[in-house]
């Protein structure tokens, strides 16, 4: 199973990016073997609208089935859930911590988006 985590930097020790739509990048972490890859999100930083929708499609395409991020808005959440991706909101400091929380079963699956439009 692959988990996508929003990342504000270029390493697994980088901070967890609170934003989803305009996250700097994503780390795709493979829970089976502990390996990970980066997914750039630069073009979305400049999206005039619907950045969350675009990011959500990107995650769906990447093959991840779970997402850990700070917050999600309603539109992104709709795309994610329709694509069968479980969303977990976390306030962990780093990407690594967030993955550890997830592995330890400390994160709860979000039933709903947690911010209004325009955040994500």
């Amino acid at each position, binding site marked *: 199973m692959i988990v996508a985590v929003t990342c504000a930097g270029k390493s697994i020790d980088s901070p967890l990016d609170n934003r989803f739509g305009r996250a700097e990048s994503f780390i795709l972490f493979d829970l089976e073997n502990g390996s990970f890859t980066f997914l750039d999100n630069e073009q979305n930083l400049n*999206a*005039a*609208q*619907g*950045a969350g*929708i*675009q990011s*959500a*499609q990107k995650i*769906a395409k990447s093959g991840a089935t779970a997402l850990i991020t700070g917050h999600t808005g309603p*539109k992104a959440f*709709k*795309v*994610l859930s*329709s*694509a*069968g991706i479980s969303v977990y909101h976390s306030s962990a400091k780093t990407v690594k911590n967030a993955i550890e929380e997830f592995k330890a079963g400390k994160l709860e699956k979000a039933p709903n988006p947690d911010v209004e439009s325009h955040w994500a």
Partner: protein
Amino acid sequence: MTVAVASGKGGTGKTTVAVALVLSYDRNSVLLDCDVEEPNAGFFLRSKSIKKEEFSVPVPVIDAAKCNLCGRCADFCSFNALALAGSKILVFRDLCHSCGGCSLICPQNAVMEEKNIIGEIHSAESDKIFFVEGTLKIGKAMSPPLIREVKKYGKGENLTVIDCPPGNSCPMITAVRGADYVVLVTEPTPFGRHDLSLAAETVSEMKIPLGVILNRYGSGYKGVEEFCEKRGIEIILKIDEDIKIAQAQSEGKTILDVCPEMKDKMCGIVDKIQKGLTK
């Protein structure tokens, strides 16, 4: 001649001025209320709306039986109004700009069109004034197409006045575009100056001549005058701060009801603009 009345922020008296301009004018005129999120010029004209029409824009619907989920439509849409999400294409109507591109690009002919009603157009006619207002449905974010539709009514009269949406973003620009002259209404406060400077910059970039009406004058703050002086923008009228005016407005009366001398001043402004333009 089309005069757009705008302001950097709401509540400066933009509608007051727009209404006073057409009421003062002795010949036929058109007033277009393009402040579609909060149209209120009609309130002061006391005109009963005689005609109501729905206004809609086309938005896509996906025929799931034909769609093979290739995702081309979603890739194409630069407004992110379409998303490939698992086994379907999601449509976010409120982000759609009705460009029609998705239906052109779909190889399966799976993109149909549907009407999304985003507002209404009301029009009313009195002796000299033809009044049209657009009103956006609550929660709709797509004001420019509605504004453009309202503006279609403003052709061919001696004087067309547009009450523009406040601010200086897309809706304001849509309303102002094509006008012969822009009147920016502001107040003598630091905020007023700030918002005026942004709006004036936008209008200058559009290369439309502009003048300023300084409303609620008398606070002693000189920043707006200094700004206009520095930028070579003419202050075409100062309207003194007057409790009578505020009171009249809360009762649905116009500035002409309490300050009859305004009629001549407004006519003077129209004349002056006309002369300035034909110079």
